[in-house]
């Protein structure tokens, strides 16, 4: 893997650039087509269980999942070391321990898995925060959860601490930041606007702390810290994937379950309380779930920007207002987005690889501006 210091960045090869553009246009086109899917609902009832199903959401899942599978396959095949497509798939599926085992099963496949899982966690976290606070411009990175993780991680890297501790330390940083925001925002209940303002205040303090560490410690170590801060999937391992999988296995069902209550909180505290939920308790639970999802992702891949902000909007544009199904769709799209961004980051200037965070921000920034423009027009 060419992840040494980016000494020189070569111009992208025309073929790579073309492939990247083709994929982006294809995804964009497919998503655009999805807007024409009819809004049809159905009731699914089996034994004592029942659910309200939006066919549109199911169709979108299917499309997104197909793209995801395709991207995973592409991700297994392409890379600096050429592996024939047949061999790449065989190595993953049945020929473990074969000729390409190290490249496929130790380098590429875990990295793809981590991208997928981290994308799911970040996007779901963003959807929860945006729903909870009722503001489409909110995400865990804006209110300081990511920087909470970053401050601790940058400190460990700057003092040359044990790198294997990084995920746990980052998780602790994110979780304690979320807790601090909640405690400081508490004033006989927590209102959305207050939470965001407190979060923005804390975020700037954390950012100042990070800058302080950057100017205070030796430059060689700060470079490693800066790389981590950009958000990178370099060196992602099966143990990272396991950490994420365990976290998601706990948090995602909770998020799905609590989405019902989130849908009521979206109608205002009074309506939600009148419909029979305990507003403060459920809001705290949702904040904990949303922060937890952001924290596990940031702990493993670093504070990747824009995924949490951006993907819930795409899901909302495609599938409409938040439901359990739309939350899961948001997750799938988040996985797709990060997977795609990481592939582009690796291949665009190959053999020089970029941190995935550069691509999520480079794609996310313009999209964010587009969104703002759209939002203004709607007002």
């Amino acid at each position, binding site marked *: 893997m060419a992840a040494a210091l980016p000494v020189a960045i070569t111009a992208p090869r025309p073929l790579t650039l073309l492939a990247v553009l083709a994929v982006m246009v294809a995804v964009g086109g497919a998503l655009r087509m999805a807007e024409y899917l009819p809004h049809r609902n159905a009731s699914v009832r089996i034994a004592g269980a029942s659910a*309200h199903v939006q066919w549109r959401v199911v169709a979108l899942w299917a499309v997104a999942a197909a793209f995801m599978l395709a991207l995973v396959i592409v991700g297994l095949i392409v890379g600096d070391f050429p592996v024939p497509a047949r061999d790449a798939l065989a190595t993953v599926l049945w020929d473990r321990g074969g000729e390409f085992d190290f490249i496929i099963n130790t380098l590429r496949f875990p990295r793809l898995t981590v991208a997928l899982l981290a994308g799911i966690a970040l996007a779901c976290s963003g959807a929860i925060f945006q729903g909870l606070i009722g503001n489409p411009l909110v995400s865990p990175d804006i209110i300081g959860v990511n920087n909470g993780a970053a401050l601790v991680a940058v400190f460990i890297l700057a003092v040359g601490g044990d790198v294997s501790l990084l995920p746990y330390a980052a998780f602790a940083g994110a979780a304690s930041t979320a807790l601090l925001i909640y405690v400081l925002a508490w004033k006989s209940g927590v209102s959305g606007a207050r939470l965001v303002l407190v979060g923005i205040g804390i975020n700037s303090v954390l950012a100042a702390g990070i800058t302080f560490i950057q100017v205070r410690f030796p430059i060689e170590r700060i470079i490693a810290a800066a790389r981590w801060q950009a958000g990178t999937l370099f060196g992602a391992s099966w143990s990272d994937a396991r950490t994420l999988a365990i976290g998601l296995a706990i948090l995602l069902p909770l998020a799905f379950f609590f989405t019902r209550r989130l849908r009521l909180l*979206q109608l205002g505290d009074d309506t939600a309380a009148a419909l029979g939920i305990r507003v403060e308790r459920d809001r705290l639970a949702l904040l904990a779930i949303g922060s937890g999802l952001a924290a596990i992702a940031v702990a493993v891949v670093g504070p990747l920007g824009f995924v949490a902000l951006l993907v819930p909007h795409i899901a909302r544009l495609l599938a409409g*207002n938040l439901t359990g199904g739309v939350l899961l769709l948001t997750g799938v799209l988040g996985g797709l987005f990060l997977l795609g961004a990481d592939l582009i980051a690796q291949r665009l200037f190959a053999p020089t690889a970029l941190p995935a965070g550069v691509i999520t921000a480079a794609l996310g920034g313009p999209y964010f501006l587009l969104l703002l423009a759209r939002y203004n027009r709607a007002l």
Partner: protein
Amino acid sequence: MRSEASPPVPIEPPTLAGRELQLGYGGPLVVEQFDTTIPTGRITAVIGANGCGKSTLLRALARLLRPSAGSVLLDGEDIHRQPTKEVAKRLGLLPQAPTAPDGIVVNDLVRRGRYPHQKMFDQWSPEDERAVARALDLTNMVQFSDRSIDELSGGQRQRAWIAMALAQDTPLLLLDEPTTYLDMAHQVDVLGLLASLNRVEGRTVVMVLHDVNQACRYADHLVAMAGGAVAVEGPPREVVTAELIEHVFGLPVTIIDDPVTGTPLTVPLEPAPRSAEPATGPLVADGMA
């Protein structure tokens, strides 16, 4: 639709009462004394000047505000001692200016009203489906069910919210100024809908209203509040007098019969009121002065 065959209201409609209620938000009390039983199966209107505590009272009756003293009794039991989801099956509330996420579709909004009836895995029972269809039907919103709420007129939007509250299917329905921000035609439309819900289905309706004349027209029972206490309560024809209105709103008026319904019609007198500030305390005390 089989909805006609299955009336949603239980045989024994729940009762709601405030007992020696004192309400406030941590500072001085907003409501100092409220001791009233809401007549079951009737329409009750709460009127009063701005800031007299009528919305506060409604929030307390809907268990959104914990009383500083006294209690709200739902079916004779303290409302705060009952599981909130169980209360939500019997008592619904439509706040004054409810908020909805951008672009929410009417159908989606109304479905959310089913929450108290849904179980962990039983999320969309035939009962839920019927209740939503019925709520849309009663409010005349069927043709708008796939429309985004932002595209609707003020009156349609209010009807969508009422449909949400109806989907909750509670025999007791509390509404905080359901006609605010609506033009006259839409006000009459919404109040007519509530009146028919009461007459046809026997639901108990409690609403805070700004407009005294509307309150007199649609309510069976009027609660007039002044200075954090009930000034007077009873059927509008019996209790509404020029003296009461002047006491409650600080405005000299004359009362005539509504030419259409025969209910009391309040007409402000010129010139401007003697005292701009509404009086406080019960009517009797003031009347004796």
